[in-house]
């Protein structure tokens, strides 16, 4: 393994990997389940705990307001920070209101509006990602779901201010990546980051909606794996038993990680930040560096090399 060796958390997971394959599969599925636990803290749970004050903005100024996406400006450690993230709901009414955290084009356009303001005013941007995917609906397609996501990616890459993305729960598909192109990408210990939800993959690849567990094991979308692949830069620990057991503590830990990352990033010149951001995403993919952190076995019982 390369210099990306470290962290108490990775050692903990490496320990898990060495155990019997069934046990590992169980852990993986448990992690997938925890990522979308009904009591898990959602975007606004974190924002309200981390910010001394928060002004939410509404609407994309083009069509409407998307309740699955929250965006606004908060006072974080006595500085302004723009927070953007998908918002899920806890009971049936709230879930419907938040559209299960599946944002449409208006959501991404609202996000872009806030990014533009933040960039103009020199305010860092922090995104909190928690979505089963962007909303699949005919109306969303008509209003350019694809273009909204691609432009959100483009805008995040073009920002001059420090940017930070945190996967706090479920990070699935382009809907997650639409907020995911940042200088640093963090992931909570029990969150997932994947190209598609396990259910979606099971329906497409296995042609059988009941193979979600098998799909999750094939995708291995855990924080530890994403760290190894270089997709995320750090794994944020959760309170024992998972973030849902103690929202206060979960927010406190995340607060420290965000503060430290923003302090580091703030010290870099903007040109250097953008160059590093470009490099960071450019090198992702097993081709560029087939040996470094890519060919490693994780969930399938083979011991990790080294």
């Amino acid at each position: 393994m390369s210099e990306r060796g470290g962290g108490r958390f990775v050692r903990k997971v490496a320990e898990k990997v060495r155990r019997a394959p069934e046990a590992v599969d169980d852990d993986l599925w448990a992690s997938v389940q925890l990522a979308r636990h009904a009591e898990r803290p959602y975007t606004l749970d974190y924002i309200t705990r981390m910010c001394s004050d928060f002004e939410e903005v509404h609407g994309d100024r083009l069509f409407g307001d998307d309740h699955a996406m929250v965006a606004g400006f908060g006072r974080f450690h006595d500085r302004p920070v723009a927070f953007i993230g998908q918002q899920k709901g806890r009971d049936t009414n709230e879930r419907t209101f938040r559209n299960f955290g599946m944002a449409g084009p208006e959501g991404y356009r609202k996000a872009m509006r806030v990014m533009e303001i933040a960039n103009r005013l020199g305010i860092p941007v922090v995104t909190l990602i928690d979505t089963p995917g962007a909303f699949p609906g005919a109306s969303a397609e008509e209003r350019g779901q694809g273009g909204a996501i691609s432009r959100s990616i483009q805008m995040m890459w073009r920002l001059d201010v420090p940017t930070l993305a945190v996967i706090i729960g479920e990070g699935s598909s382009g809907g997650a990546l639409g907020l995911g192109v940042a200088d640093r990408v963090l992931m909570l210990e029990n969150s997932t980051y994947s190209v598609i939800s396990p259910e979606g993959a099971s329906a497409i690849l296995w042609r059988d909606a009941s193979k979600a567990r098998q799909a999750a094991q094939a995708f291995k979308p855990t924080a530890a794996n994403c760290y190894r692949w270089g997709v995320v830069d750090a794994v944020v620990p959760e309170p024992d038993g998972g973030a849902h057991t103690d929202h206060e503590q979960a927010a406190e830990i995340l607060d420290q990680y965000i503060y430290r990352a923003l302090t580091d990033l703030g010290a870099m010149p903007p040109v250097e930040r953008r160059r590093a951001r470009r490099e960071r995403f450019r090198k992702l993919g097993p081709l560029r560096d087939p040996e470094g952190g890519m060919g490693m076995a994780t969930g399938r019982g083979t011991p990790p090399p080294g």
Partner: protein
Amino acid sequence: MSRVGRNIHVSVDRLRQLAHRDARPRKISADAGTCPKCDSHYSADEMQRNLRVCPACGHHFAVTARERMEQLGEPGGYVELWPELRAADPLQFTDLKPYTERIADAEKSTGLGEAIVCAELEVRHVPAVAAIMDFSYMGGSMGAVVGEKLARACDHAAQKGQPLIVVAASGGARMQEGTLALMQMAKTVIALDALAEARVPVVVVLAHPTTGGVWASFASLGDITYAEPGALIAFSGPRVIEETTREVLPSDFGRAERQLENGQVDAVVDRRELAERIGRVLHILRRPELEGPGAMGSPALQWAQGGAQRAAGAVQSLPRKVMDRIRPGSPDGEDPE
């Protein structure tokens, strides 16, 4: 296939025979065969002459990336770039079949190293870089190789100061490369900005189908965006939408013609006019000042020079009173003579 409402006469024996036969999927080869829309039959060379468009009803069949290069480029051909890149298997992924096996099968059946072919070519005498996707290679899905080749094509075009032509035909991100396939969306969108910095245009052609992560990344960021008739262009496909939201979708949902009305593409262009259309727009966007001494005789420059002469002529024909007012006031003493 609209056979509904037609009388079909079949003997009982024949029905019994059919009932016991294994259900076999109907396959239509792109080389010869039957139009699925109007049931006309074609020979292989007829199909090729017609750029794989049904001459009777205009149905657009799938085209391989290499054949498309030949359709778009000059007869001189094209120079393929980075054909050696191959997919890796970072997740050691297995669904119904191991990913490594899928890659090997795809290469064998298509003769392609990956789902995208990049090349230098000339479209109607305009030199350009082309990145063309091939749906027959694993549904044109975007893994690390597709992302990397597209990013390199952007850099290459920017470096040469030539426009980039992208033909998208893809089901989206390649599931078998998991989260790393998702990251290719970011990689390609970022790479496109090299062209913005070099101030060269990107023309995107959306072929059937352009969906998922490909539509939600580089394919929706063309400066000029054409779609082939009937192409499905969507982030979520109709099946996913119907399953998730229980909506009943119209039959033309997400099709090129509909997406033109939705404002998502600039034009629906018949494949038989595509090269002409791309060549035309690239000619319009050509800037002679970037093309060096070789461009002095270019039509655009001749037109601009003609304009200057016309303007000078117009100044000479102005009334003397106006001319007197212009001459002394002119700071650099410019004389139309």
